[in-house]
């Protein structure tokens, strides 16, 4: 049974904004469409930026990738601000309850000294990688072209700040809020041999100029490898060592990675499908950063997991790249 409340229906003059209508026809539009398409100015800029006078304020030439329509980068998650924060709020609610449970039951006391040391040595320093990812995604948000991709980069950048903060909280849980674990992890990041490759790679992405290249280096290559090494293989290792409770504290990152992978794979696929020139350039960038990342991560992967670990992660990256259409 259903009941129907009568409401006055009024005939609208038009169903949506004219720019959306030009793209999709005169029919009711989604909130994602109205909040995304053609929001960014594309013409008649008044002044060249003092900080980059060879380009316009919004300029597609800040990357060598060429698109006939930058709004081809539709987000498969259809995240506009409201959809994005509501989705993340759900995830943080679960995370909050996990962290609260972990602390209330003092699950840290079940960690062996080895497991605790490994978490501080291998997991907590990643907050600095997340901080790099925050900057690299803000870079694309600031200098990318078209709201479809720049808003997704902004969301991703804020997510990375959030995850840097979650990783920091893991350190604080382990050191009883003294900050010692964070200091120890930072010392690792700054000085330990196993981390220097990754730190140098982070610093290199921060001085790389092409925003699309930075996006790929960070969100595809580095993330694919680190995610597999840390959140799959190292997670498994912790479980095997009886430290599976740490998984409660990294569940946010696990879920997040699935979500972000869906988006960046769609971005890659769209850019590849646009032209052979794009494909060639993307293939070249991926090869370049894959090589650098493999070299950078080798000592870390070896120390954390053993000799085969990096190979497994690279194989997964190669599979995703092939699936996106790069030959």
């Amino acid at each position: 049974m259903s009941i129907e409340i009568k409401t006055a229906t009024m005939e609208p003059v038009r169903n949506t904004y004219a720019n959306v209508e030009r793209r999709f026809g005169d029919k009711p539009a989604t909130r994602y469409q109205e909040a995304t398409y053609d929001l960014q100015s594309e013409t008649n800029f008044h002044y060249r930026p003092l900080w980059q006078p060879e380009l316009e304020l919004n300029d597609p030439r800040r990357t060598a990738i060429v698109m006939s329509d930058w709004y081809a980068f539709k987000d498969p998650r259809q995240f506009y601000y409201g959809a994005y924060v509501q989705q993340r709020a759900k995830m943080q609610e679960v995370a909050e309850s996990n962290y609260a449970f972990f602390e209330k039951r003092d699950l840290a006391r079940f960690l062996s000294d080895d497991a605790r040391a490994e978490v501080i040595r291998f997991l907590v320093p990643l907050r600095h990688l997340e901080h790099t990812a925050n900057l690299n995604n803000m870079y694309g948000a600031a200098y990318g072209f078209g709201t479809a991709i720049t808003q997704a980069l902004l969301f991703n950048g804020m997510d990375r700040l959030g995850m840097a903060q979650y990783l920091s909280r893991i350190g604080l849980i382990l050191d009883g809020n003294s900050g010692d674990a964070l200091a120890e992890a930072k010392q690792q990041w700054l000085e330990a041999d196993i981390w220097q490759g990754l730190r140098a790679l982070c610093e290199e992405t921060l001085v790389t100029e092409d925003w699309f290249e930075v996006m790929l280096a960070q969100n595809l290559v580095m993330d694919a490898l680190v995610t597999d090494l840390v959140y799959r293989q190292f997670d498994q290792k912790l479980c095997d060592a009886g430290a599976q409770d740490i998984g409660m504290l990294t569940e946010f990152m696990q879920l997040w990675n699935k979500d972000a992978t869906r988006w960046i794979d769609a971005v890659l696929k769209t850019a590849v499908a646009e032209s052979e020139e794009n494909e060639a350039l993307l293939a070249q960038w991926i090869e370049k950063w894959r090589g650098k990342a493999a070299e950078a991560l080798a000592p870390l992967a070896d120390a954390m997991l053993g000799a085969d670990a990096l190979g497994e992660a690279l194989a997964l990256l190669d599979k995703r790249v092939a699936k996106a259409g790069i030959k």
Partner: protein
Amino acid sequence: MAAKKLNIKDKYRLLTRDLDWEFSYQDRNKAFPFEEFEGIKITDWSKWEDPFRLTMDAYWKYQAEKERKLYAIFDAFAQNNGQLNISDPRYVNALKIFLTGVSPLEYQAFQGFAHTGRQFGGVGARVACQMQSIDELRHVQTQVHAMSHYNKFFDGLQDWSHMHDRVWYLSVPKSFFNDARAAGPFEFMVAIGFSFEYVLTNLLFVPFMSGAAYNGDMATVTFGFSAQSDEARHMTLGLEVIKFLLEQHEDNVPIVQRWIDKWFWRGTRLLTIVSMMMDYMLPNKVMSWKEAWEVYFEEAGGALFKDLARYGIRMPKYADIIEKEKEHVSHQAWWTFYTHGHAAGFHTWIPTDEELDWLSEKYPDTFDKYYRPRWELAKEMEAKGERFYTKALPQLCTTCQIPMLFTEMDDPTQISYRDSIYKGDRYHFCSDGCKDIFDDEPEKFVQSWLPVHQIFQGNCGGPDVEDILRDYYQMNVGVDNMDIKGSPDEERWKKWKGVA
């Protein structure tokens, strides 16, 4: 082990401020390359006081709660045809100005704060800018959604982003933000974070939202309430920026003062359109522009500058001229739009007799003397079937891009003209304030994309104004513009309300 309790400042330091590190493998200046060219001296980023210590988990939680409530209202508004509850169809024209003129600025603010959120070398300042960046994206998107239902029932909202990039009067707000974004990151923060968000927000954001509240616009006013706590954060960031710059080095003081002078003048020019919205476009008035200016600038701003005097900062240049302008600008602006009503993207009209009386009461020293007679003449002409539209395109000020409509403040019958010669060409200005800004940075302002110049150069199609409006601006000529009397907006309203 009992965990020690962390205070919020220490916690924020550990969770956020401690994330950055000294580079070993690359030159850090290459990662943050734009910090030095403006001449601002930052000796120690660690002295930055975080204006709000919000971590991302809390941000997601609070903002999602606000979004849920906001979109529930939007849905209810659409389902119940909330547009029928507004005071008068004339009100929607304020929304047309807002969506075509202000919402795109929110977008530019998102981009500008993303830029500073990437470029500042200090992690505390960066993260604060990033949070403002994502808030600004929220504002443009929720505004687009708030107006979405109006767009289905009124004309002139439909092509807002296309219009913003092209239409003559919209180059005023667009160039304002382009100017700030084209500047260095510190000038951007003084221009937008401090001058615009901290000092002038009460004269831009608040009048539109109060106008919505007074005129039965549930969708827009709900957005306004929902954005209030975001705006409060932005204001604290704006104030922290100014204090930080002034405390870092004494050499920063004259640079900051020059920016304050520039951006207050630019800001007051930009607010001209708000003045006319408040005095002429709101069927139910909130307060007069003059009253708003006195409360929000003269009192609140005056107190602020007293506070900043200890750093060696004085009131913005030309504050004395601005004080006189509050008596005139709204009348001069609405008259200009009324006479160019065929080329605007919204409807114009003659104030009703009650509204003319209200204006006389609110502006006892100027309205009856200078402005009421014009409206009496317009009424006579309209009654004879001779509603007046000027055929001419206005000359624009090279700096603020507003038509030359402002008068000398001591002689409201004399249009104010200034000019400068730069590299053999003459440039025209509406005021000493705008001329100074040009003279200070001529190489920047000679680039201005002045809509009327562009039309005469043949860059906007044509040849006739109507061709440009229809083909280049993509307006529905005679539907989106002209007088409200006889417009489709008015016809539909009468039909909905069952009046002949």
